[in-house]
């Protein structure tokens, strides 16, 4: 009612101001061929209100005041403004088809929509069509589609995510050790329907995380996504402030957009199959190989005699030892899964609504794992006129994950169990397979429940001046309950329980002003502020030796068997406030200048720098608007040059880093004292990490938009990186959290989109994109003198070296130069006459690996390590190819990664399986055929791999030690992500059954990977390029789906 009053008053005001009279205007809207165009929106520009939509034959009738300018709008056509003269009663309007994908494209900058043509930053937009038809996590569907966004689907664990990096490396922080060491995730900021979301929050504890760890992105059904925008350069991201230092991904979900209520149902039924499993030698073959190995390599009679004391080798007549158990097959399975998504939407420009309900269930290819998702997204938009807009939205999501006895991404138990000897289980007591029991019978339930209401109101105070305010509150609760039965845990059952909750209160208010002077000078000013309050509290319980398998809770009967727990240290209660101003000016849309400035204050910052400041500037020249270019190059549909610079500042401070940590320790006057923890010295001067970026880009669309090309080059300097300095032992404290490290990333991105054939029935679209990113370490804390080695405490000893002036993350390994063909090939120290030897004094001999003696002392030790390789990919990109013939669509999506070093730890482990043929119990390992490997077998062989059967060397020389370049391989791969074949039924056919749309499709996901890599999958490696043999393999998916609308 109130709106109506305002509306009437406004109308009156307009009416008086123009001294005009009402008149009825009839007319038709035609296309250039003279056919009537239906569904064209007719808008009164003075009120901004949509008056009517044209009939299917193009006719319309409106009642207007004279001297009004009408705007005719239809998707796919250029807007047309027509000034209606006094007394005019009929009108014929001709709309010209618009150039595809230029005028209509709108980008989001600082939560405000702007035409892409006037944006100075580097960004890419994907639409729902780019990610449809394949069931799976949203992020993996983006792989290879945006140049400069490096997505590695490096885990197949249901409900988890791989890694995403925009424009290279932004951190030096490595967590974990050995094969499990990973780079601290630096995922971009996700802004989902206007609310920022920290996608890394589930993974900040590394691979050994606690709690459900479900990726927040796995909770969004891809069917509900309307568009995804990826902001890459600092001009685009700086408006999102300190959270956006790693780029921004804006996801908008679908909204109601149909006059007639529309019901849309999407179903996917898909089979997931495990990758090819390791080949093993089973049963008698295994025994014979082990015996042969002993007879061929034993150095003493004792070894031969030991066979008699090893039952599974000598007791071959025992029926139990004639097993041939395929352990891997017990863990892996092919699964049938499904997803359903139902959406209802409808409405018009005044009121529209949308409801999306999704269900997704996936059973893991590793038994006893899986992921279920239930999601709803309800949205209502109300806009009685162009001045008032109101949006209400509720997200509710429930994710359930079963991790088995692993930690989600890691399945250590499964990996170990899969390596058990095929001769197991042994006679009389079936306990050799406690790994198996643990994997299969551990009861693990993880739940993440998220609810997020969102409301937004907006009012246009004056023409061009709009006030918008939005409020959202997200509450998520995470729980994990694990019950390990007695048989899987040394005869005593145990319980682990995790409970966490996280909230985010978020509010944003903005004031926009848009004004055009003489249709030449356009300005846009956007002033907004954000307020956030993020809290997080997680706690755990470990209870060991619970009474029995039947009693699974409630617990707390005996503190003696409690193994700790309590509040985890990722507790958070952050309050943040931000202010941002962005201005944009353009002259005839040809010359554009963007200026923006943002301040972020957070309670997590030290008082020394409470606010971080993020300025940015951008320029754009749209050459295609220049008259002289129009004349000379009519084939140029779009030609723009963009240049930008900006800064994103991200605070490093935490209360612990600034003020130190205090623990209960020490005594004072026989009283318990509280003293400072000497692990880390407080550093109140800790500076925020500053990421500054220059970007230069060219956008081209040529030959009637048949070819479009986007090229960007950038230089990104990440300064004041957090780097722990180890202090001199005389200081007292161990570590100083400093920020004297810096990285530069620079590179080129190219996206080329070609539509070679576009005639009638047949359409062909081909796109290719690629990015070349180099990272260089610029500096380290001065007293390191330009090099720092991160020694890996793990037995594997795959160390990482940071050296200024080189690619940031290199390995520090022994250089492998082949295998000693004969004993005489081992070098002799001319001074001592002794052969090259290990530090234990064992001399190298034929069949042993050649490790370069870097320091020339004829002793192999840790002084012989050298810097080698680069674990980060140099080139990433992808390809898309789509054919449309009549109603049939065939799409092929591919992605590639090149020039990256990966460490094939899986092969190292496989070769080392032969290390102990006598192994019993847990050490009784399966044997694998090694025929395919270029391995030394007899003197004179020139080979790549050392002699694996020489078990006597395995403890002395350790030929298959992890810290050597033998495992370094080229991680280049080309992967066909998806093949999709879809068929759209004819509308005329469907209308007989009351259907509006029916689309059936079949798709394949993770189809095939082409690579030189000798391991199973060059992508299924950690962000540090290490092939985890205990990781979760990425399955292949065969999908049948249908999409139905009525």
């Amino acid at each position, binding site marked *: 009612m109130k709106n109506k009053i305002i509306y009437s008053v406004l109308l009156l005001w307009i009416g008086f101001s123009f001294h005009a009279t009402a008149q009825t205007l009839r007319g038709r809207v035609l296309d250039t061929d003279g056919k009537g165009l239906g569904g064209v929106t007719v808008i009164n520009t003075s009120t901004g209100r949509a008056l009517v939509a044209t009939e299917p034959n193009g006719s319309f009738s409106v009642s207007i005041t004279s001297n009004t300018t009408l705007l005719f709008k239809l998707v796919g056509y250029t807007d047309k403004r027509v000034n209606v003269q006094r007394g005019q009663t009929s009108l014929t309007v001709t709309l010209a088809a618009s150039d595809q994908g230029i005028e209509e494209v709108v980008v989001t900058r600082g939560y405000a929509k702007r035409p892409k043509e006037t944006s100075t930053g580097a960004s890419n937009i994907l639409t729902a069509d780019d990610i449809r038809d394949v069931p799976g996590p949203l992020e993996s569907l983006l792989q290879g589609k945006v140049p400069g966004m490096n997505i590695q689907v490096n885990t197949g664990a249901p409900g988890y995510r791989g890694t995403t990096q925009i424009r290279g490396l932004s951190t030096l922080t490595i967590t974990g050790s050995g094969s499990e060491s990973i780079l601290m995730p630096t995922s971009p900021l996700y802004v989902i329907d206007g609310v920022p979301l920290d996608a890394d929050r589930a993974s900040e504890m590394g691979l050994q995380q606690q709690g459900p760890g479900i990726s927040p992105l796995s909770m969004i059904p891809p069917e509900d996504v309307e568009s995804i925008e990826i902001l890459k350069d600092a001009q685009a991201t700086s408006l999102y402030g300190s959270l956006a230092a790693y780029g921004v991904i804006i996801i908008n979900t679908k909204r109601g957009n149909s006059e007639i209520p529309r019901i849309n149902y999407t179903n996917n039924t898909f089979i997931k199959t495990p990758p090819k499993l390791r080949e093993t030698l089973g049963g008698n073959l295994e025994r014979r190989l082990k015996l042969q190995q002993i007879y061929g390599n034993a150095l003493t009679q004792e070894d031969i005699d030991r066979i008699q004391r090893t039952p599974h080798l000598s007791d071959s007549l025992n029926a139990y030892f004639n097993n041939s158990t395929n352990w891997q097959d017990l863990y892996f399975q092919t699964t049938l899964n499904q997803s359903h998504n139902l959406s209802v939407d409808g409405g018009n420009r005044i009121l529209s609504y949308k409801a999306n309900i999704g269900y997704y269930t996936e059973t893991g290819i590793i038994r006893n794992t899986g992921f279920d998702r239930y999601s709803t997204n309800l949205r209502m938009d109300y806009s009685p006129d162009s001045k008032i807009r109101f949006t209400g939205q509720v997200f509710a999501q429930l994710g359930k994950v079963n991790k088995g006895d692993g930690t989600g991404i890691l399945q250590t138990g499964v990996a170990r169990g899969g390596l058990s000897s095929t001769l197991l289980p042994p006679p009389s007591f079936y306990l050799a397979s406690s790994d198996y029991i643990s994997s299969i019978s551990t009861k693990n339930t993880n739940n993440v429940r998220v609810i997020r209401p969102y409301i937004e109101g907006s009012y246009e105070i004056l023409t061009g001046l709009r006030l918008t305010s939005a409020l959202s509150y997200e509450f998520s609760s995470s729980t994990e309950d694990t019950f390990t039965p007695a048989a899987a845990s040394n005869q005593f059952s145990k319980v682990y329980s995790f409970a966490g909750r996280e909230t985010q209160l978020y509010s944003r208010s903005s004031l926009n002003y848009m004004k055009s002077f003489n249709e030449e000078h356009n300005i846009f000013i956007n002033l907004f502020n954000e307020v956030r309050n993020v809290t997080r509290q997680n706690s755990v319980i470990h209870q060991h030796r619970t009474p029995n398998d039947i009693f699974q809770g409630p617990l707390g009967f005996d503190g003696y068997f409690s193994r700790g727990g309590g509040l985890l240290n990722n507790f958070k209660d952050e309050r943040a406030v931000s202010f941002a101003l962005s201005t944009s000016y353009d002259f005839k849309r040809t010359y554009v200048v963007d200026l923006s400035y943002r301040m972020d204050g957070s309670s997590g910052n030290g008082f020394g720098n409470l606010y971080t400041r993020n300025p940015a500037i951008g320029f754009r020249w749209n050459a295609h608007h220049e008259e002289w270019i129009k004349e000379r190059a009519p084939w140029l549909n779009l030609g723009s040059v963009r240049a930008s610079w900006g800064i994103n500042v991200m605070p490093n401070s935490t209360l612990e880093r600034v003020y130190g940590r205090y623990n209960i320790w020490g005594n004072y006057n026989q009283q318990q004292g509280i003293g400072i923890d000497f692990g880390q010295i407080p550093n109140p001067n800790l500076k925020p990490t500053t990421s500054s970026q220059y970007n*230069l880009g060219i956008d081209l669309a040529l030959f009637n938009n048949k070819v479009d090309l986007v090229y960007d080059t950038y230089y990104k300097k990440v300064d004041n990186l957090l780097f722990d300095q180890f202090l001199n032992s005389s200081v007292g404290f161990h570590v100083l959290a400093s920020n004297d490290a810096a990285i530069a990333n*620079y590179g080129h991105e190219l996206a080329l989109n070609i539509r070679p054939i576009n005639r009638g029935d047949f359409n062909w679209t081909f796109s290719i994109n690629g990015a070349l990113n*180099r990272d260089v370490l610029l500096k380290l804390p001065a007293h390191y*003198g330009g090099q720092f080695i991160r020694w890996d405490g793990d037995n594997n000893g795959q160390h990482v070296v940071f050296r200024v*002036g080189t690619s940031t993350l290199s390995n520090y390994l022994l250089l492998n130069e082949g295998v000693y063909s004969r004993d005489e090939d081992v070098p002799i120290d001319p*001074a001592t006459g*002794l052969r090259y030897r290990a530090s234990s004094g064992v001399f190298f001999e034929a069949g042993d690996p050649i490790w370069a003696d870097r320091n020339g*002392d004829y002793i192999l030790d840790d002084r012989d390590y050298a810097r080698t390789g680069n674990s980060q990919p140099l080139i990433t990109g992808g390809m898309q190819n789509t054919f449309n013939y009549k109603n049939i669509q065939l799409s092929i999506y591919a992605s590639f990664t090149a020039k990256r070093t990966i460490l094939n730890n899986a092969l190292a482990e496989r070769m080392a399986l032969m290390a102990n043929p006598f192994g019993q119990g847990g050490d009784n390992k399966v044997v694998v055929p090694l025929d395919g490997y270029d391995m030394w077998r007899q003197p004179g062989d020139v080979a790549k791999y050392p002699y694996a059967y020489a078990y006597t060397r395995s403890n002395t020389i350790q030929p298959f030690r992890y810290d050597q370049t033998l495992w370094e391989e080229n991680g280049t791969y080309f992967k066909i992500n998806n093949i999709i074949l879809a068929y759209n039924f004819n509308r005329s056919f469907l209308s007989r059954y009351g259907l509006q749309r029916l689309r059936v499709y079949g798709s394949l996901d993770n189809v095939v990977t082409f690579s030189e890599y000798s391991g199973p999958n060059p992508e299924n490696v950690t962000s540090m390029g290490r092939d985890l043999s205990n990781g979760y393999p990425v399955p292949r998916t065969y999908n049948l789906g249908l999409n139905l609308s009525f």
Partner: protein
Amino acid sequence: MMSYIKYKVQGSMAALSLLTLFSCDNMYNLPTDQDFISENLTYNTKVLEPILGRTTVFTPLNVDNSTLPLQFEIVNARFGDGTPATDFLENAETYEWIDEYDGRETSLQEIESKRRLVSKPMFEVDSGGRFILHASATSDRILPRPTDSVLKTQDIRFFDLKLSNSGGVRYVKDFQLIPWREMDYDPTDLNPYTGEIAPDPANPKDPRKRAYILPSIMVGLVGDSTDVNLINNDQKKDLVVYIRQFQGGNGHKLRFKFLDKKGNPINPAEFNETRWDNLVHGFNRETTSEYVQYDVAYPIPLTSFNTVYTMGGRARALFSYSRMGWGGVRQLATFGLDFRIFKKGDWEIVFHFQNDNPKFDND
């Protein structure tokens, strides 16, 4: 033609702009990729006190993860009083191994074919930064520390080491080389300062007494006249060893001799359980009633590689005999010496039963 020029201009413009875009590595003024050379490069031992006349390899450089290989150079060699010291850097002939000595060689020629004489500085730093004093450094070429045991700074040879790679140059300064005089054999009965026979450690002032080399192993030897076990201790030394050169050999002989309490030779055949062929890695064994001798390659042992002839880096010579003891039990007596001889020559190792002869007769 005009259009052709136009395209040429456009083409070259495009090429130029691409060139500027792709050649930007230098544009960003990035630090260069160069080797790392640590500020903390050092050696654990900077005072080098080798014994002359034998090859000594010192503990290697503490590289502190500097990028290898490094270039090494000994510079500024001087005596403590500042006068240049070049004597220890002069070339001399020394053996260099080219193949591995493993103790299975069947002739002297085969051994000699595994090493060769080269002329190189007596003291050098090798490509890995190890300091090596070669056996060619003898007391007459390099003056060892003074015999009066008073070490003055002008007796010390100082030098600095220059280390470099593409990351820069570092100096490790003021190494000291203070060699001990040659000791031709080990274990020793010599005074390390003077090279003369050392006094008895128990009575250093008594000029009538001297230090002895004692056998490494002495088990089951019984005195012929006393019927008690022969022993060596601080008060009493029943069996002592002399390592000395003799005249009349071919220059690479090793002879074993046994003396009774009167100083008369004992017939080696009395030591009836001795494995004469595996006694030392020698050839052309010659057995007389007074001694056993072999043609050998010096030094003994040739390397520290463990062979059947060595034990813990020394050559092991074991002698044993057996006789019938009381009650018809066969008694085995064994004695021997773990030794090293560094200098080539005709050497004899003499076992002297000072106080009582060993009992060979059956009981």
